[in-house]
């Protein structure tokens, strides 16, 4: 295959990085295999389950159906990018712990990144709006209510409407 490899430069969790990639790679493959960011889960690999969700320039994308080559010049964030310098949990991660929004944990990184996109808008959403915004993720343990509560409480806390 002609031009099978290319040099990719992008910003990953706040750091400028560059590496040679195979253009046939998905962004999931790149993040897991080259950068060992294993929070990016391989679920359905056809953009249905949301387990591989990452933030690209602030918006949530299924990295399994996003070509690694498209990350050029973009800001990519994974769950690892939400934690503090010494691994401190962010408020939304802590809320998942507090609300027992985690059972097997496979869907959690994706859910938390979509939650991060929602929370960063700084808006207050209704319950129905929040459910719709979270609808691109499947939790096979069916822990949706706790996940919903974790996101809602964090939203209200950030807006100063809950202590």
């Amino acid at each position, binding site marked *: *295959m002609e031009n099978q490899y290319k040099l990719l430069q992008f910003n990953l969790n706040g750091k400028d990085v560059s590496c040679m990639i195979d253009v046939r790679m998905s962004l999931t*493959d790149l993040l897991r295999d080259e950068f060992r960011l294993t929070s990016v889960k391989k679920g359905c690999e*056809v*953009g249905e389950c*949301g387990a591989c969700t990452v933030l690209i320039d602030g918006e949530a994308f299924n990295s399994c*159906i996003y070509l690694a080559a498209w990350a050029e010049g973009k800001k990519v964030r994974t769950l690892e990018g939400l934690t503090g310098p010494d691994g401190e949990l962010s408020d939304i991660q802590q809320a998942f712990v507090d609300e027992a929004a985690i059972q097997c944990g496979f869907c959690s990184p994706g859910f938390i990144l979509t939650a991060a996109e929602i929370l960063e808008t700084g808006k207050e959403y209704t319950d129905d709006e929040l459910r719709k915004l979270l609808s*691109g*993720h499947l939790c096979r343990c069916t822990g949706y209510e706790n996940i919903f509560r974790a996101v809602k409480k964090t939203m209200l806390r950030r807006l100063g409407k809950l202590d």
Partner: protein
Amino acid sequence: MYDMSAYYEARSVDDAVALRLNHPEADIIAGGSDVLVQMREGKRAGHALISIYLLDELRGVSLEDDGTIRIGSLTSFSHITKHPIIQEKIGVLGEAVDMVGGPQIRNIGTIGGNTCNGVTSADSASTLHAWEAVIELTGPEGIRLVPIHDFYLRAGKVDIRPGEIETAVLIPKESWENTKGYYFKYAMRNAMDIATTGCSVNVRLSPDKKTFERVRIAYGVAAPVPVRAPSAEAAINGKAVTMENAEKFALAVLQDINPRDSWRAGKALRQHVAVELAKRCLIEATRRCGGEL
């Protein structure tokens, strides 16, 4: 790894046209939420790809000097929904594309991809038909404009010629002015589902809100390609805003549509749903125009 035989990244529209001419066998990939899934399934395995995804010049919504709403072909569904021009002038399009897949799919999926794959169930398709959108294609001879009705040739096949890519979807001012619409997606689930039937109606009332000046209606999944319902439109245009006329309008759609029997839904159910949706969409669009039914 995706099973592709070659990958070409277009760096400009001209570059995309040149790549199309040099590699006529290659598939165009925009957001990839259809192409990559089909490649994974094996349907497109081994195909060459021309990516246009990095062409930022094809993103965005603008209002041209003559009042035409121009939507760049790579504008994502979520950006269409959030855009103030769409919200103000053709809100129904923003609402329709807000029902595609789930949130992440709406961030990657593009209006260009949604029209170019030629699928009847595309959530944008019925609304774009009902609004008489015009597809802008750019090719070796420059720009070609095609009314969306003519753009869909048959199921899965649209009028894209060698060397061309779709560069924009246009909604002329005459189409959107003083007009409000409503889209109803009938599906089994609220997220990550494909429409069993989708209906889009838009209405322009007379200034006194008593007469249907112009009503347009289109369906997805009522025929192999998205279709307008001309008999229904003829039955209501120029008529008084009454429930009786709304019901006649809804029943007349049966003369225009030809839904199929499939595992998703039988023909009889789809016909029943089509009539009901026509009525509900008309009522809601009329209400949005300030009329009462």
